[in-house]
């Protein structure tokens, strides 16, 4: 059985095929995502990681199957209630002339009425989130003048300011340097220690193995393995899923580390 007893998300027989696509990008996925734990969704390009997250978040509608969050099916949630329960760091947004502070302040929108001004608690949450993600020094800069990694940290700050008990991140550290990648994972660990449920999709298997409680390994839209990192990341399974020979080393902290072999078969 996987770590964590209370279920946050429950997925049953989930399938999704984009209109016009020959094959489904998610097929017959059943999963229980535990509460107050960090779950990492891993898998090769095109495995369906982003699709699975978007189905869980209700921005894609499945062709079949059931999704429920905290015991309520997604249809029973309003977007506003959902935004108060789940904060998201998505991939890819359109450039706009917003300052960094305006962008982070958007995390407070689900807590405010249409004509309501920012309250003191909102301002505090915004400042705190900017500090935690190391973007406070950019406060008055336009988003477009920041680098890709800096923008990614602003989006993380926006999700932190949202102050939700669940945090979902789609490849949050893809364009970050080592320091900011590590500070992001450390921040996620802190949030998890405070009881936040975290779900992230990532290509960094080794950090996922060190920080996450559970891994979900996807291939071709189906779950290959699900469980504790040491159980999921075996050499034969990773080789078969990613189609590249690997060795599994053990880190000093005990977590499995994937070391791809040099001189493997090319395709």
């Amino acid at each position, binding site marked *: 059985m996987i770590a964590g007893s209370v279920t946050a998300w429950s997925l049953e027989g989930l399938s999704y095929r984009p209109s016009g696509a020959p094959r489904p990008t998610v097929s017959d996925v059943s999963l229980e995502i535990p509460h107050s734990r960090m779950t990492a969704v891993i898998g090769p390009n095109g495995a369906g990681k982003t699709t699975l997250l978007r189905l869980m*978040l209700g921005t894609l509608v499945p062709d079949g199957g059931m999704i429920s969050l905290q015991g309520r099916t997604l249809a029973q949630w309003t977007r506003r209630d959902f935004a108060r329960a789940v904060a998201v760091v*998505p991939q890819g*947004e*359109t450039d706009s002339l*917003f300052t960094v502070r305006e962008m982070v302040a958007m995390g407070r929108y689900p807590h405010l009425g*249409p004509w309501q001004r920012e309250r003191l608690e909102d301002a505090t949450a915004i400042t705190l989130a900017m500090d935690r993600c190391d973007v406070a020094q950019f406060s008055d*800069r*336009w988003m477009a003048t920041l680098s890709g990694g800096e923008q990614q940290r602003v989006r993380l700050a926006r999700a932190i300011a949202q102050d939700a008990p669940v945090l979902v991140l789609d490849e949050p550290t893809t364009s970050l340097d080592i320091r900011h990648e590590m500070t992001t994972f450390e921040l996620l660990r802190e949030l998890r220690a405070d009881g936040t449920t975290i779900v992230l999709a990532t290509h960094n298997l080794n950090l996922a193995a060190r920080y996450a409680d559970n891994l979900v390994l996807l291939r071709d839209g189906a779950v290959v393995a699900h469980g504790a990192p040491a159980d999921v990341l075996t050499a034969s399974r990773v080789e078969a899923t990613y189609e590249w020979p690997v060795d599994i080393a053990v880190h000093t902290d005990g977590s499995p580390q994937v070391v791809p072999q040099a001189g493997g078969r090319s395709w």
Partner: protein
Amino acid sequence: MTHARALLAWPLSLRLLVLALAASVVLIAAVRLGAVSLTFSSVLQAIAGRGDSTTITIVRELRVPRALQAALVGAALAVSGATFQALLRNPLAEPYTLGVSSGAAAGAVLTVVTGWATRYVWSLPLAAFAGGIASMLLVFRIAYSVGNKQTLDTRVLLLAGVVVSAFLVALIWLVLTFADTESVRAAIFWMMGSHAGASWRSVAILGVCLAPGLLVLFALARPLNLLAIGEPTAAYLGISVERTKILAFAMATLLTAASVAVSGTIGFVGLVIPHAIRLLWGSDNRGLLPCAALAGAAFLAAADTSARSIAGANELPIGIVTALIGVPCFVWLLRRPATR
């Protein structure tokens, strides 16, 4: 640079105050200037109903409603343009992108060539309004028939708008090819836009149409901010994306169709005023929409005053004036080194 930074740091209340002052100055000038120039005091007297009857008629029945109509249309087009740019996530979007203007023009041309426009005064604005709304509905119908049919893909919407516009424009020219010279001239002048037909009645009807549209869009400022950066992001931050998009498109279309119905297709305002405000103070629609409304009102009232006073007895089409004044101003704003 320091000057530019100081301008950028203006709080919203100061921006609104300055723009409202600018709009008031322009409105006063619009009532004073024209074929007969009036002093400020004679304008005030005429409004109060004193002085000679010609002046009272000029001020009360001609210039005041005309200035108000120009200001209302300017505000509506600027807010509608800002909304379309946010919803379509495209800087080239404007109130006419989705075919409202060509639909309205088709309706207007129909009444001109059939002669209804001269027989029934209200047939032209009515037909223009209906044509604008109808072409918008057609564009939405096409966009919804593509893809998964439950959600609206804004890229498809944009393409549908462009092709429907092209089709309607072709129809208009087909009809005009067989029309008499006088109808062609009337149709072309209508398409270039004018406030010459303004009356208290048109101002009142315009006001009734614009007020709900403007209020709803101002209340949607936060959702529009989110839709401008991405629809999934908007959903994750608590917006019912499809519902909000439809409401915002409907309100922006109402603003545009009502404006076009009373004054023809006046270009440029809806495209450039929102960008000008964005370049000054950023994309936050809570500030952008009201600022664009005031700036659009001031700009179009000024353009209309120029259109009817600079060329003596000949009134210039206002669309020509908006572009001739607006383009140099906008280029100056674009080149201004004021990035944060």
